[in-house]
């Protein structure tokens, strides 16, 4: 018996359309990046990647990412806890506000931060008189990166924590558990996979963020240049191979992220089957 829409020609035309589309729009660009990066051979690639300014850009990107993750982890867990475990006026509004960084264009985010914290900005003027410079320095890059990635952890946790409810936590409290013990022994084990997933997404975005960072960075080579900005600078310098070498690094990080995400999803689904 044949199901509706299961005719041979339907199946094959859909499959070939999907394959052609993925190859053309997803796989081919990825291949092109690596092809370009290694166009002049392995040693040129290594030379490009270990070039002084590239190393500085990698260092800054890693620093910003490493600082962003714990901040957003703490913020995301606290926010998800607040929104799913307490009822208070404005809770709905807060849940909507969480999504602002998703909805807004990163460039706009960068501009807003510049307006607030720049030398002529509302808060920036005061900071400047105290000799604190945030914009066009790494703290500014960190701030916009945190802004752009702030919803990831909370977004992953909220639906899960809503679905799980607070019964287990209530049970733990009736048995005498207090604040941190409660979190460590009851809440955390229940959300750990979603938490890790949120961290992976945060990591991917923090590494790759371009728009917001480009506004507040000033792109000073060796000082405020992140890896994505570095790619653009090199390309503008007509150093195509160098640009693609850095781009290949970014692509590699992205591939690792995808692999980690797939592994995690596989683990979680296996766990659900076992449960």
């Amino acid at each position, binding site marked *: 018996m044949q199901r509706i829409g299961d005719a041979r020609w339907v199946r094959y035309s859909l499959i070939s359309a999907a394959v052609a589309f993925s190859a053309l729009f997803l796989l081919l660009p990825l291949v092109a990046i690596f092809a370009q990066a290694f166009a002049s051979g392995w040693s040129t690639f290594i030379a490009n990647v270990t070039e002084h300014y590239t190393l500085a850009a990698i260092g800054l990107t890693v620093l910003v990412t490493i600082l962003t993750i714990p901040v957003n982890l703490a913020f995301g867990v606290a926010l998800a806890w607040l929104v799913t475990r307490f009822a208070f006026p404005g809770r709905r509004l807060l849940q909507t506000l969480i999504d602002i960084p998703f909805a807004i264009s990163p460039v706009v985010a960068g501009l807003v931060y510049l307006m607030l914290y720049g030398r002529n900005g509302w808060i920036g003027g005061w900071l400047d008189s105290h000799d604190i410079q945030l914009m066009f320095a790494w703290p500014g890059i960190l701030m916009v990166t945190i802004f752009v990635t702030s919803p990831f952890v909370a977004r992953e946790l909220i639906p899960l924590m809503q679905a799980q409810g607070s019964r*287990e936590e*209530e*049970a733990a*409290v*009736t*048995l*005498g558990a*207090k604040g941190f013990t409660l979190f460590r022994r009851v809440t955390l084990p229940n959300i750990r996979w979603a938490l890790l997933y949120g961290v992976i997404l945060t990591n991917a975005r923090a590494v790759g963020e371009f728009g917001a960072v480009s506004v507040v960075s000033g792109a000073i080579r060796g000082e405020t240049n992140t890896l994505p900005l570095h790619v653009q600078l090199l390309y503008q310098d007509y150093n195509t191979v160098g640009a693609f070498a850095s781009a290949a690094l970014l692509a590699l990080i992205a591939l690792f992220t995808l692999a980690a995400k797939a592994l995690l999803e596989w683990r979680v689904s296996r766990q659900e089957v076992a449960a």
Partner: protein
Amino acid sequence: MSIRLENIQKHFGRSQALTPTNLHIDNGELIGLLGPSGSGKTTLLRIIAGLESPDAEVGPRILFGERDVTRVHVRDRRIGFVFQHYALFRHMSVFDNVAFGLTVLPRRSRPSSGEIRAQVYRLLEMVQLEHLAARYPAQLSGGQQQRVSLARALALKPEVLLLDEPFGALDAKVRQDLRRWLRHLHDELGFTSVFVTHDQEEALELSDRVVVMSNGRIEQVDTPDQLYRNPANRFVFEFLGDVNHMEGEVREGVLTCGDAKLHVELPEGHQEILLRPHEVTLSTSADEIAHLPAIVTSVVPVGAEIRVELTAEWMDQPWLATVRHQEASTLGLSRGKKVYARPLSWHHYPQGTSAAAQGAAQPA
């Protein structure tokens, strides 16, 4: 430990979940909070536990024995709480679930791990689950999960055990077993228990006293026997079992409704009487007290009795009558047969009051 509740009221936003309520529970009692959903029974239980706080403005007081726990946090009230869907820690084994309360004790009062182990196994033995100690909650049946959750609640030897719909999600047979077992446990360990249920049979079977609630109010507190015999008002009467209605005009001591007539001693005017299925007998002819013609629409044997459903033009809803097997065969009951109902006794609740009147249809 006795429990005394004074002026307990609760609002959720603008809706009132509980009107000011007082209740006294004796030491060692097993109390059932019975009511339909939305009656405030779970809210009351959660307030006793401390999972919900009563409205402060009416001056609430909650006393466990002589100890005022109104402002005491849940974790310091020393109660055992069994949740509706067990709320077992899904990532912990049965052993770790039961051990949880002991392992989170402050270090100075925490038993050694050997003692905890011994104590957990004693509890698991009590609930007959020691062979499943290494399993995870998802690998257990509903009844087993419920027993784990009881063992977990009892680990800290609470003097008050609170249970929220403890058997709600279980099938009939398991339910029956667990009920008996809980009663046994209660009598053996001597704690004070309060459980919430919407199942009147469960409340009547298990409780020393039943608290019937509706719309955030306590309607009646009584022993199961008293409750069934002397319901305080129409709500309690209707909630505790199947009810047949007859509504019509009373003139010169006769309640008339369509072609149905019944001699009653009630004031003139519009009146309604209520009666239980076992208060109805059937016969093939009317008499001078009752002329209540009806057609049999179903005859279902239920255990020792036969449940007969009757319809007639004058009824709003079909009546139920329970008769004995022998009676049924004498009358030759079958679907479509015309019979006459005769009330053995009936109940009357004047509208707007909670006073009850009861009548007996004595032969003239």
